[in-house]
């Protein structure tokens, strides 16, 4: 399982960061950092993303 960020589509708006319930995401200038140890694969980030740039892969 993993969360993938498409750097070409991402507009670094931080919407995913704001709805991540466990603070597994961090906006660092022009980069979204994802912390696999914290992630609970809830899917919030994927649902809120206005640019379809983040995908929760559950396999």
């Amino acid at each position: 399982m993993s969360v993938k960020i498409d750097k070409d589509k991402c507009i670094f708006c931080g919407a995913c960061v704001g709805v991540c319930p466990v603070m597994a995401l961090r906006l660092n200038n022009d980069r979204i950092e994802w912390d696999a140890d914290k992630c609970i694969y809830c899917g919030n980030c994927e649902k809120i993303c206005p640019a379809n740039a983040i995908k929760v892969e559950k396999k």
Partner: protein
Amino acid sequence: MMTDYDVIVVGAGPAGSIAAREAAKKGAKTLLIERKKEIGAPVRCGEGIGVEHIKGMDIELTKNDYASVINGARLVSPDLKNNITVRTEQSKGYVLDRKSFDKHLAMEAGRAGADVMVKTEVIDVIKDKDNKVKGVKVVSGILEASSDHTNNDVYDITCNVLIAADGAESRVARMAGVGINTIRPLSEYDSGYEYEMVNVDCDDLIELYFSNEYAPRGYLWIFPKGKDSANVGVGIGGDKSDNGIFAKKYLDEWIKGPMHERFKHAQPVAIKGGLIPVGSSLDRLVADGFMVIGTAAHQVDPIHGGGIGLAMKSGLMAGAVAGDAINNNDYSESFLKRFENMWNEKLGPKLKKRLLLRKAVEQLNDNDFNSIFNTLDDNDINLLLEGKYKGVALKVLKNRPQLLKSLKALIV
């Protein structure tokens, strides 16, 4: 214990800069911390604001701070056949240039005596052994390490009152671990996407387009920045994008589809977007030595999603209370509660009322909207904006009795 600062404010948006200015004005030794290397940039906002939000803030807008003066609003029905234009004192405003405006506010904080630190990100909140907030841990590109400093660019900075003004991401309150949870269900957020565009004919009105087809549980907007340029955006319900539909796609399809004529020569010169909390303010805004303000505290207008004005109001109140706390040597939750009480007293009832209207409007489909646009006039819209719902709701129900369930809350 000696601390580095009396008050630390995290985030130099409208909330944080005003809070830092007010705390500094009260004589508190204040630090304003901002992650970005340039305050105000990049912009993530439609930049619209009503004049009444600027009044009482003690800010002299300069010509650089805004792109255009707005004299009212045009509301457009889903089928694009009807519109209602409101031109009242209340609906006047500006489309700001937030790059300039936000920097201006931060400068005012600096002028009032606050230290300002850019390119510095708060990565954690420091607590003492009694679990009280004592300061922040930052990564900074501008602090010079002392010779005994080994831990890369990570520094501790201590304070007596920490103010989280970090906007919609709102992580600082959660880092503080003081029982203030800033996460709400996705339905209490909007997901926004926006282009700044040229070759869009504009007048002196902001335009709001209602459409469940192109903006489920939200709306689309054209906010003029000049005669031929505008912020063109969409906000959709936070639980509405899924299965390959998302805010950007809704906006693109609207621009290419029903709005094609208007946008046929339009060119995007910037992309903006982000998260807009649209429910109600957090109930708890303070803890010992800690406050959360502005959009970080979900203090956004529930009807239009505007957060700049409320962020400044929040900053004004919180900064003053933080300054008073320092002067009284009392940083306890019960002292800082003055801010929470002030907020609830001054804005609570009004925002609660506006949330009621939002909840009712959220239940309408496009046919309902089209019919309502046939029934209502600008006077009715003014009444709604003033919070006088009953007469307007009854007028709508006369034509559309089937809406009784949706509008019931507005007529009691």
